């Protein structure tokens, strides 16, 4: 490596190093909300509890998000090979699956609200909405990043040899996916078995 403006004294690209540091710190952010949820999972104030969850529906959403990680890594793979057309196709597929997941979350929240699980109903309701809502915000930000990458690639501002840009957005997207892997098990499935 020559005197690269992006390199650190570790010999690594500082943007990627910063992304990994950010992702590591995000565990503390989500950990707080998961801990609050676990603390209040049975504190329903007479309102709906975990029995309100529609596990088959959420399973499909989870599957869609998991498969979006596949299309994301295929986008990065295509970019590494210099195939920008295929990269853009996989980026669109990833953003589309993210949008399907978000749509599912909006539908789920609306259904829960109509069934009496209002945000201020109980500590259970608040902790559930805050945790899953913040995850949804992360997915939304991911979709914006993906669409920005798509647009920049179309206008020639992302070039064939700049696959690090796709990789960085991919890291963020995969992180959002692994957080959902945890949420799906800890928030939905385990309480459904333990409490429901």
């Amino acid at each position, binding site marked *: 490596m020559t005197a690269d403006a992006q390199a650190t004294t570790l010999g*690594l690209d500082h943007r990627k190093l910063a992304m990994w540091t950010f992702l590591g710190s*995000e565990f503390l952010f989500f950990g707080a909300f998961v801990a609050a949820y676990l603390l209040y999972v049975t504190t329903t*104030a007479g309102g709906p509890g975990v029995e309100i969850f529609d596990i088959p529906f959420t399973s499909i959403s989870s599957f869609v998000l998991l498969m979006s990680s596949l299309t994301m890594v295929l986008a990065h793979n295509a970019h590494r090979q210099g195939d920008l057309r295929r990269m853009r196709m996989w980026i669109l597929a990833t953003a589309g699956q993210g949008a399907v997941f978000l749509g599912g979350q909006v539908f789920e929240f609306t259904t829960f609200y109509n069934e009496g699980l209002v945000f201020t109903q109980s500590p259970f309701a608040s902790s559930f909405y805050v945790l899953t809502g913040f995850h949804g915000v992360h997915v939304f930000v991911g979709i914006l990043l993906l669409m920005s990458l798509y647009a920049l690639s179309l206008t020639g501002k992302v070039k064939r040899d700049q696959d690090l840009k796709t990789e960085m957005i991919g890291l963020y997207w995969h992180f959002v996916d692994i957080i959902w892997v945890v949420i799906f098990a800890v928030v939905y499935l385990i309480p459904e078995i333990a409490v429901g």
Partner: protein
Amino acid sequence: MSATQSHDTESHEDHHPTARDYVNIALVLALLTALEVSTYFFDFGPIAIPLLIVLMIIKFVMVANFFMHLKFDTKIYKQLLYTGLAFAVVLYTLTLIIFVFERAPSV
């Protein structure tokens, strides 16, 4: 190398899985998810919750190792990710223990 052309700064080109490898990994992840969901439909008894935790960890590590390339990248990235995770697990486990013993406010 220009400021924006840095994809070879860490030279891990030779170790990346192929597209077919990624599809195979995704298939395994899909199967593990199906097994997770099956705990809702079938009674797994006392092993259900430990099984879900194990499946969650396997899926987590697979995505991090293969899709995020932690398996092929420098160890520093792995340390950054898992240090953050370890901090969070220790901090919030202790917090939960304290809250449980101190009795959290309830409604």
